Structure formats: structure tokens, C-alpha cells
């Protein structure tokens, strides 16, 4: 029985610029923030540009194989030194006065240095501001907090689940194509808590998808569970309830299934699963699904895995960066098909997504002001309700044997309130 008390973020934190400034300083400033995937910068000199809270950053790889994340801002006047989405380079040259930085962010050249700057000028202290970088299962995170616990410690028991999601196949996963972004209405936290474990909205918000028969195995008899760990991370996992279904990970080529290189519990975490989605606090979202149905032209359905990074633009808008991950060893045909499914089901222009984005903007439109809009959102779902089925795997973290519960959202809210230093 789940008996944890409810908690809620003040409504004002969904509309106030002041709250957002504090979030940038604490939630984004102190946490490990997801930046991208190792496979996006496979070679020395490769780079991508990304957001890290309010900051534009560059993720690059140097000759020694190391991955760097640094502020995309010249140390002379603050100009962005790179305007491109991705590329390969040995240097970043500022377009204003021509200061040149290496792929590791070090200041390499200053026009007129010998004649225009004095003898005490020290380029060594004028490199691009560098973040600490940590990688786990191919996922690259960065933090500005030099004294924060390391990435693995910060992930805690979530690490076990990330291994099950991103290290199931021996060849690992890679990004298909690259990343793209879409701006949407609504406070960033709304999107994050949706992925954290909201199974409750599915049959209402996405009712038309069930009615159209698009939802595949998710529409049948299923058992769902949610898992949360300290530091705010969580996931929701759903499985076919029919014991007669073969024990296999759904939607992959046979050769790939044979390449699964995972222990028994990690395999059981993935086998017969219809959907697993969740979030790494504060703003990495993930979802992997069994095949869905997308019309006669899309027969031969396959699974897909999508990542999203959520970045606040202002209190009422956020930017979503999307990636589709595919097993590195899958066939090219399988990879394209998986990408197609990812686009049709969870692309920003898809009609499934439209229902969620519509609710996010309706929340934003309904926030009210400091006089009337003060009642906090309700997070009591699942409290004092008996737990049900038994999960097929044994793993760490707090496993709640309920599909429809807001235990994960409460976990997220508690972490947020703690970091922001406010009362729920």
C-alpha cells in the first residue's frame, strides 16, 4: 500500500519568471543535465550545439577521445562562437574580434596578442567555461556544480534501469540521424511530470488512439508498475498480462534478440514489455515502446526508442529536443522503419503528440493569477490503494505495484521542492 503523503509545486512556479530564475540557479545549475549521446560525436573534432538550462553549450570530442561540454560564449565579449547545429572542426572562431578556441575550449589564438596585449595577458585563464562531463550507457550529462556528487552516484538506483534500457543489446544504441527541436507552450515541468509516470491520462487524453486501434499491445490486458528513486528519477513499465505470450523483447529483429547481452533480471525488465517511459531528473525524458499500428502501409511494425531533453524558454514555453535511438547492429531497413514509427507516434507533428501538447497549453491557459490561481495541483492518485500485480523482474529502487498512481510525480515534486528550498 502506498501511503506516502501528497506534495505539490506551488502554481506560481508554473507562471513566474522569478521561480524560473531560481530553477536555473538550482535545478539546472546544481544537477547533472542531459546534453546528448556519444554517437552524435563519434570522431575527433565532431561537435553539436545544445541547451543546458538557459545556457547555450557546445558538446565536442577531442583527439584523445574525451567529450567536452562548454559554454558557447566567447570569454572576450560573450558572443556565441558556434552558430551551427553540428559539424566537425579543430577550432571555434568568434565572429566579433576573432578569438579562437580549440575543440577542448582552450583559448588558442587572439588577434594582435603580442602587440595589443601586455605581458601579463594570460590566455590560459580565458578558455570557454567548461562543465563537468559524465557519461553513462552512451548518455552524456554535464553539470556546472564542481562539488556535486558524480553522475553515477546522482543516478543512484536509476542506473540499473538505464542499463536495461540502453545496454540491452551487445552493440549498444546509437542516435538515428541526429537531433531536432520544437518549441511548445506550457511550463517545462508539465512535460517532465507527464513522462515521469502518468499512465492515468492515456485512456482519456489519447482515447482516440485506442479507438482507432493504433495502440497495439498497450490496448490489451496489461500490468503496469512504476519505479522511483531518490534524486527525482522515475519510470513506468507496462507488460502483457497474458502468460501465454513468449518471453521476448517485442519489436526487434531475430538476430538482434540473439545479441542481447544482459543478465536475467535486465532481460525480464524488457521482455513482454509494451511500453517503458520515464525521466532522469531534471529534464531527460525517455520512452521505448513495442510495435504500434500505423495503417496498412506501415505493416511489419517495429519498436522504437525516443529521448527528449526539455529546456525552459520562459515560464510559459519550453523547447523540446528529440532523438530516436536504434540498436547499432540493427539493419538499415529496421532503423528507418523504427524512425518512421517514432515520428508517427511521438513526433511533434503527430496526432498522438497533439493531444499531450494540447493539454500542456490548456494547463498554461488555466493557471490563473496570484488571487484565484492558488490551489495546488492534486497528486493523491494511488495513495492508500492496494497494490496489485507482481512485476516480472527484481530490481532496485522503490517499485510500486500499481500502474495508475502518482507516486512518481510525488517523488519528482519532493526532489524539486527540496532543491528549490520551498514548502509544498
Amino acid at each position: 500500500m502506498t501511503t506516502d503523503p501528497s506534495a505539490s509545486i506551488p502554481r506560481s512556479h508554473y507562471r513566474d519568471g522569478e521561480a524560473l530564475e531560481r530553477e536555473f540557479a538550482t535545478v539546472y545549475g546544481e544537477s547533472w543535465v542531459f546534453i546528448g549521446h556519444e554517437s552524435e560525436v563519434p570522431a575527433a573534432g565532431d561537435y553539436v550545439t545544445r541547451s543546458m538550462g538557459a545556457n547555450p553549450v557546445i558538446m565536442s570530442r577531442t583527439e584523445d577521445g574525451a567529450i567536452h561540454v562548454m559554454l558557447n560564449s566567447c570569454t572576450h565579449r560573450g558572443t556565441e562562437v558556434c552558430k551551427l547545429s553540428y559539424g566537425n572542426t579543430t577550432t571555434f572562431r568568434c565572429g566579433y574580434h576573432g578569438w579562437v578556441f580549440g575543440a577542448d575550449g582552450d583559448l588558442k589564438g587572439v588577434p594582435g596578442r603580442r602587440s595589443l596585449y601586455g605581458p601579463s595577458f594570460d590566455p590560459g585563464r580565458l578558455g570557454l567555461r567548461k562543465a563537468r562531463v559524465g557519461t553513462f550507457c552512451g548518455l552524456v550529462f554535464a553539470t556546472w556544480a564542481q562539488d556535486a556528487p558524480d553522475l553515477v552516484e546522482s543516478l543512484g538506483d536509476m542506473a540499473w534501469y538505464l542499463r536495461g534500457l540502453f545496454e540491452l543489446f551487445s552493440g549498444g544504441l546509437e542516435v538515428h540521424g541526429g537531433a531536432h527541436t520544437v518549441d511548445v507552450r506550457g511550463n517545462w515541468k508539465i512535460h517532465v511530470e507527464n513522462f515521469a509516470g502518468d499512465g492515468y491520462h492515456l485512456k482519456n487524453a489519447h482515447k482516440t488512439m485506442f479507438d482507432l486501434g493504433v495502440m497495439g499491445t498497450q490496448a490489451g490486458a496489461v500490468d503496469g508498475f512504476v519505479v522511483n528513486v531518490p534524486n527525482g528519477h522515475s519510470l513506468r513499465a507496462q507488460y502483457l498480462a497474458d502468460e501465454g505470450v513468449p518471453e521476448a523483447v517485442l519489436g526487434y529483429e531475430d538476430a538482434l534478440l540473439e545479441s542481447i547481452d544482459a543478465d536475467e533480471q535486465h532481460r525480464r525488465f524488457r521482455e513482454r514489455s509494451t511500453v517503458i517511459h520515464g525521466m532522469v531528473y531534471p529534464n531527460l525524458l525517455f520512452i521505448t515502446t513495442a510495435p504500434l499500428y500505423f495503417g496498412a502501409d506501415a505493416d511489419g511494425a517495429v519498436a522504437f526508442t525516443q529521448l527528449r531533453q526539455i529546456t525552459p524558454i520562459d515560464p510559459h514555453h519550453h523547447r523540446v529536443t528529440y532523438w530516436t535511438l536504434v540498436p547499432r547492429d540493427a539493419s538499415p531497413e529496421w532503423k528507418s522503419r523504427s524512425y518512421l514509427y517514432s515520428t508517427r507516434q511521438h513526433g511533434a507533428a503527430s496526432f498522438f503528440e497533439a493531444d499531450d501538447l494540447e493539454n500542456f497549453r490548456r494547463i498554461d491557459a488555466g493557471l490563473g493569477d496570484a488571487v484565484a490561481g492558488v490551489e495546488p495541483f492534486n497528486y493523491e492518485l494511488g495513495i492508500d490503494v492496494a497494490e496489485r500485480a507482481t512485476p516480472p523482474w527484481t530490481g532496485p529502487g522503490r517499485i510500486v505495484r500499481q500502474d495508475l498512481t502518482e507516486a512518481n510525480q510525488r517523488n519528482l515534486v519532493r526532489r524539486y521542492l527540496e532543491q528549490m528550498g520551498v514548502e509544498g
Partner: protein
Amino acid sequence: MSGVSVELHHEIEQFLFTEADLLDTHRQAEWLDLLYDDFSYRMPVPVARDEPAQGQYDAVLEFANESKSFLSMRFQRLDSDFAWAERPAAFVRHFVSNLRVDELDPGRAWRARTNVMVLRSRLPEAPVIATAGRVDRIERHDGRLLLCERVVHIDTEHPNDSQLSSIF
């Protein structure tokens, strides 16, 4: 005149105007009837590259990749009271211009390039405008013009979801 006759140019232009009107007036079934069975609709993702000559659209990433059967499902859902994002319907207005026609297969298939501006307005969002270049493949089957393929090149690297939610 784009290498085709004035009459044909006019016929294709009128076809595209009618097609846009059906979208603007929510006559989805009639719009679907203008599509060839293996119609494909794709919207590649814009990218900021180093060299202007490298092209401004990604070869792999797509905002949308839809087929006639998939679009039929999308429209079928409008009959439901639960199509939250479609009820009430948005105000949508297409402006179609700069038509250039190239013949692909004499008397049978043409490439029609147009510039489009699509306005979409639906509360609580402010009205949004998106512009794009379209490359269509149009074919004549049993005397009727049909739309076989549409590729949409949207003119912004950071679109918002309202800009993406209309059919261009």
C-alpha cells in the same frame, strides 16, 4: 511559362487552389479523394550547416512522414468528441503562390513547386504563421489530376508545434 502550356499551368494552379480550399474548410474526405493511393507527405527537418551549398534540410530527420492510410486515420479521429487538439477546430488559411511546373512524364506527370503561407489560429495560442516551399508530384489518372507526393520545406529551424500541426 515553366515549360508547360498556359492551359496546363492554369489547370494545375486551380487544382492546388481547390486542394488548399478543402483543407481550409475542413472537407477532409474530399481532400483525401485528391490523393493517389501511394501518396506520401514528408517534412524534412531544417538544419543550420556550415556551407550554404550543403543544403538546409536534413536527409534523415523528418517532422512528418505520412501516407494516405495514415492521414485517413488522422481524419477519422476528428469524428470523436475526444480529439482534444481538434475540437474546436483551428482556423486555417493557406496562401499558395509562385507556382513553377516542370514536366516529368509527358502528358502524365509533373513537378509543381509552390511557396505557401499557412495561418493557423486556435485559442489559447496566438495566431501563428508558417511559410514553406512545397515540391509536389502531380499525375493524371483517368483524366483526373491527383497529388502523388508532397515534400514540405518549412522556413524555420525552431518551429513551434502549432506551426507543425497543419497540413501544408
